[in-house]
């Protein structure tokens, strides 16, 4: 309610129609928003968190009816009513796809090698020096900052090393660089980066009876816009299919135009089945359908794509929570929630990870686009502050370009 005076006085001094209109608009806006906030907060207070057992065919909540007005109009939140457009498309043989021909299978070091060298200069000059001086520390700091490790994590790492240099535990720049690298590696290896692959599920914490009741393992892929979620789902599908697992893809990105088509193409490349909903439809119902379908048709795993969402859009995060709840109901069981993160992302990546972890209990990070010049150092801060491990790494657009995370290779590539 406190913002209008600037606009109002501007309007007074330049009394054009539009400005007068705007001067009215602002209070209207603010009252409107105020009322909206009131409604919204009240709504949440009454309802509270929806228990996992909640039916999918809830009356539309405010959450699922947001985004564009057109989208909401066509949305039919009832799972049953969205079922007709959803279809299991037989996986046709992929039309000849050009990508595989030119790309040799991705190896972590091979791919990263291309992008290396940018930072070698800093560490090269550090190593070549006879002793550790203030420029040594500056160079190390610059190298870490340039890799997007961030000020906080960089300071923490270097301060700890400073102590060890002071106490003569580390002598000489060579040893300092090695110590830094091994610190980084151990920092990146603390959390369990193993994936809940089908077959290894029985070894999980859940008891067997529960496993029997919930045979469909669901992997959920979440993240902000444009990080490569759909592509990652395609690659994971390919990997599982190749290992002989029956995979079903759920095209849970019903918002972005043609995201479903994109995933369909990946499904045919990976020889996997897919469940799609209508564009602008309710993503939870697509995931629900997919889990049901998987249970009847005997797919071991459902890979659920979701629409990109900025983590500061509260309602979209609420929508994601609902998707997770729905996916986690028998016969489904969410075994992986993977946060897809673009290696070019800077310090904002930490904020993203915090929100998504909090909202949907992320189990690991997929770091994509690591075949470029970006280093993806933000994952150091993410692991350090949130304990979230990197599980997979994307190294290109080819169907094979997804590999397990290797902390040693990653740290080597950082410098």
């Amino acid at each position: 309610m406190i913002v209008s005076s600037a606009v109002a006085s501007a309007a007074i001094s330049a009394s054009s129609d539009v400005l007068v209109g705007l001067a009215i608009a602002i209070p209207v806006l603010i009252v409107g928003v105020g009322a909206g906030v009131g409604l919204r907060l009240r709504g949440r207070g009454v309802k509270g968190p929806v228990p996992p057992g909640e039916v999918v065919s809830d009356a539309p909540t405010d959450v699922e009816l947001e985004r564009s007005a057109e989208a909401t109009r066509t949305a039919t939140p009832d799972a049953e009513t969205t079922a007709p457009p959803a279809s299991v498309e037989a996986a046709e043989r992929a039309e000849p796809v050009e990508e595989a021909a030119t790309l040799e299978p991705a190896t972590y070091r091979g791919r990263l090698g291309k992008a290396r060298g940018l930072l070698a200069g800093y560490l090269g000059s550090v190593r070549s020096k006879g002793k550790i001086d203030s420029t040594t520390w500056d160079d190390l700091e610059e190298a870490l900052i340039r890799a997007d490790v961030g000020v906080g994590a960089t300071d923490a790492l270097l301060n700890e090393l400073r102590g060890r240099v002071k106490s003569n535990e580390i002598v000489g720049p060579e040893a300092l660089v090695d110590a830094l690298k091994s610190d980084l590696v151990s920092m990146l290896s603390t959390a369990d980066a193993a994936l809940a692959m089908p077959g290894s599920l029985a070894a999980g914490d859940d008891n067997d009876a529960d496993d029997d009741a919930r045979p469909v393992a669901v992997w959920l892929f979440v993240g902000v816009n444009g990080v490569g979620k759909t592509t990652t789902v395609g690659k994971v599908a390919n990997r599982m299919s190749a290992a002989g697992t029956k995979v079903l893809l759920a095209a849970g990105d019903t918002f972005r135009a043609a995201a479903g088509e994109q995933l369909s193409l990946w499904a045919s490349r990976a020889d996997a089945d897919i469940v799609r909903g209508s564009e602008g439809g309710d993503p939870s119902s697509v995931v629900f359908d997919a889990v049901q379908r998987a249970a009847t048709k005997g797919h071991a795993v459902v890979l659920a794509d979701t629409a990109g969402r900025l983590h500061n859009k509260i309602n979209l995060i609420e929508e994601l929570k609902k998707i997770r709840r729905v996916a986690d109901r028998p016969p489904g069981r969410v075994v992986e929630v993977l946060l897809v993160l673009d290696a070019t992302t800077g310090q904002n990546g930490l904020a993203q990870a915090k929100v998504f972890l909090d909202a949907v209990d992320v189990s690991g990070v997929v770091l994509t686009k690591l075949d470029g010049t970006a280093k993806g150092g933000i994952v150091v801060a993410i692991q350090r502050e949130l304990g979230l491990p990197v599980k997979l790494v994307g190294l290109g657009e080819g169907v094979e370009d997804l590999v397990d995370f290797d902390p040693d290779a990653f740290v080597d590539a950082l410098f």
Partner: protein
Amino acid sequence: MFESLTDRFEGILTRLRSRGRLTEADIDEVLREIRTALLEADVEIGVVRNFTQAVRERCIGLELSQNLSPGQQVIKIVNDELVAILGGETLKISYAGRPPTVILLAGLQGSGKTTASAKLARWFKQQGRNPLLVGADLQRPAAVDQLRVLGQQAGITVFSEPSDPVAVATAGLEEAKRLGRDVLIVDTAGRLAIDEALMDEIRHIAGAVNPHYTFLVIDAMTGQDAVATAAAFHEALSLDGVILTKLDGDARGGAALSVKEVVGRPIAFASTGEKLDDFDQFHPDRMADRILGMGDVLSLIEQAERTMDRDVATKGAAAIIEGRFTLEDFLEQLQQVKKMGSMSGMLSLLPGVPKDVKQASSAIDDRQIGQVEAIIRSMTPGERVNPAVIDGARRVRIANGSGTATSDVNALLKQFKEMQKMMKGMGKGGMSGALGGMFGRGPKMSPQAIAEMAELSETGAGGGELPAFAGTGAGAGALGAGPTASPGAGMGGGRRSSKGKGKGGKKGKGGGRVTPKSR
């Protein structure tokens, strides 16, 4: 948008502001803080170094001014340097003498090229142009489908064919000539700057269509790598500008500063939301204000001008002046406001909105506004004109009719009543008085701070002719006049208006310049 950076600066600068003198140690402390803030905002480390160096040099040689405190002077220097990096001018598109004006978009995967293409086409359409979109991203599965859907939503024809990108672009150019389109926008596949084959390809595309403008699309969340990428694309394509996307996230957007500094090309457009209309030209000078804690009122006015219906606005104004603003009018105006874009996007443009309000508003969507609409629509015409008749039973009926709770209806009626009172004040005694009183209820920035900033702008910060400053100054005048924290303050507009107006008149000279010059 840039909020965290703004917050950070505000914290540091408030401390500075309160000190009378500036020692060298002060300067160092401030610079350290500024350095950390910029690095956390993803400004490239080299750019940060130059920035702090420049500020330092100017601070040390600082001649104490009589008009400004040392703290204010540092603020001015920081502001000047920010403006210097971001660039002064908004990019002016000059259209080709022989149409079409060709625009090529390039960038990394996932930066938002396809969405930006459609938004840009729509922007040109709103400028009265007749654009054609060309989908030359044949790499990503279904990218052309995505562009077609977006084109349909924006009412723009999309051309593409399954051949190769260079051929598509060439054919697209022919098609544009054939159809008599005056703007051609070519969307291309995402590519890494180090992928030589693909960089070659886009060079060929550029060679084939000979673009008048080549824009690099960059994600506002990009980290230190933004500079390397921008430099590589610039070398290959000779960029004319940058389109900054996903500015509606909470990323601090330091990449904008870095890219401008390193490539020397302006940020031409910025994308601030998922809707096709959440897109506009980037105003560098205003962005510097925003970094320093001032909102972007000018953008808001332009947005309003583009979307609002003059008749409806005039009608609403008349209703206010005559003191008969009803729920019916409210509904009408609400729809006007809705046309201007997302609520949270608009709030973020306003100065002095507390962070928690902004955060809360990001939860708001047209969906919630829809609820407000539903409540009003569930009222009879009589009730809308005279809400006083709405008793308990009617409230229950309205709540049932609109699918809300009676408490929601109550809340809306209460808020509307307050707004009505406020508007009566506006009608009687000038808006600044009434709104100033309203402002007085819980200002985040102190009146003094705002007045200081306004003064600063008059003494020449950033070219000094920023009307937003002047406007804010006027508002602050009114604000100073209103007693603080009295709930009734806003309604006494009539009484206080003379003072508010007087101040506004004095400082608000610049307000006259608000008249958009970009048209």
